[in-house]
């Protein structure tokens, strides 16, 4: 069971990191 949690955590963390890269790239040229 805990291995499933670990697998979900891996996916979630790296998925978030990929979205974060996209977000930072999109921020360029945007005035906050």
């Amino acid at each position, binding site marked *: 069971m*805990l*291995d499933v949690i*670990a697998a979900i955590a891996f996916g979630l963390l790296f998925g978030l*990191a990929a979205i*974060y*890269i996209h977000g*930072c790239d999109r921020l*360029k040229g945007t005035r906050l």
Partner: protein
Amino acid sequence: MTLNGWLQIALFIATVLLLAKPMGSYMTAVFERRKTFFDPMLGPIERLLYRISGINADEEMRWTQYAVAMLVFSAATLVLTYVVERLQAFLPWNPQHLPGVESSLALNTAISFTTNTNWQAYSPESTMSYLTQMLGLATHNFWSAAVGLALAIAFVRGIARREMKTIGNFWVDLTRGTLWILLPISILFSFALVSQGVVQNMRPYDTVKLVEPQTITGSDGKTSTMTTQTIAQGPVASQEAIKMLGTNGGGFFNANSAHPFENPTPLSNFLQMVAIFLLPAGLCVTLGQMVKSPKHGWAVLAAMVVLWLAGTFTAYWAESHANPLLHNVDAKVSQVQSGGNMEGKEVRFGIANSALFAVVTTDASCGAVNAMHDSFTPLGGMVPMVNILLGEVVFGGVGAGLYGMLVFVVMAVFIAGLMVGRTPEYLGKKIESFDVQMAMLYLLIFPLLILGFTSVAVLMPHLGLASLTNHGPHGLSEILYAYTSATGNNGSAFAGLNANTHWYNYSLGAAMFFGRFMMIVPMLAIAGNLASKKIVPASAGTFPVTTPLFTVLLTGVILIVGALTFFPVLSLGPVLEHLLMQAGQLF
């Protein structure tokens, strides 16, 4: 403090500075793919690796591609380590027949070693098999350091290039950093450590008869007499070398570099400290050479040396004074004793080399320890914590220190521009809103993670506070240090905190993950943006980044950002503990 102690400290920094230029020049040649001594031997291996993995070494990457490649590599190696830990009971090289590592601890450790943190919530000799230590952990010591090197070089390329969309090829930088830099030096260093008595074998642990049997009373009140002791063995020297060189810090044994099999002599201690600073110091020279402004590299290195000296002086001074509540105890320096606060320190290293090691390991993101930071005086223990809280930019981790410092350089140049009312420029590149936004993101994520996780932990008695050995301000320091060490990817433990619980394994794992990758991404975004810019000719209004004034400004910005962010929590922890100790209360 003694003259002998200061002479050893002076010898240490002189050695680091003497080695910085040859090391930096060599790294420049490696990453600019110029000819080096190792090419005939390593060139064919490099080409073979590219052919097997289908990599085109001449293909350049945008910053987003570079970041995704780094993430993919980190994810793959993280999963490998997790699987090896979980399955170690069924794998070879497990002479002690250790069971598989518990899931939350395996997850925490896999993240820890992938992120170059090497936080260890376990006792290695009773938890990890030889195969796990080598395949799961020591490999990460190379990979995570090589990733740091690659990222720093990508940032430097961003500064050096003009009107380009790319910052290099991650796979090439990773491969060359591992093969040309980390492997040869660590092999050489392993032999030096073996010569000092660091063990290197695959034997089962030894059991020896005690000269003097020990009677102990267990928690259940029963007494038992111990007549034997188990002495752990293992392939230590090979792991120890990259542990220091790659600023990883994860010990083969629980006592880390205080263990006589990891760090047997004053000379091995000296070499280990030099190894921690070797690559970060060299990278400053690499920076100067790659951006065609060697003086800029030296100016950045000078800021690091100033901050290192301030930390060393404070820690050495604090530890040279004994606990004032120890009455009728001779704690003065003499021919037969070190004097001062020797609690938690090894007699063979003494005060000076314990204080210096603590400063060096936390200036860099190493995290190895040769003394227990929890046993330092409140102010002495605050120094390692402050070093990490400043962002580990004082030399810093391999690569991570330099790119962290360069983000501070961007901020320093920006502030200088604001002060004179001109658009800030850095080596001919205009610093614009996107660069500053990303720099601020980089700088704000760090305190957000540390203070956020610490706040949650201290507000939950059954999760956060239940693991504490000490309470009051010292307890706060223990929790704060744990999240600081994790987020800063340092990995040293203040001790006194049982971190092997589900709460700490998961929350510290998250802190390590976000502290690594959420800071790398904005840093790479700055690199990509800088690479695309034109070079503006220097004018009378350009702030020079090669002068002592720049070094002073950079040092000031680092200290002010750190002080403004963390002074309140430090005042509730080590500062309060120091004042209460002076008033006669200990925790």
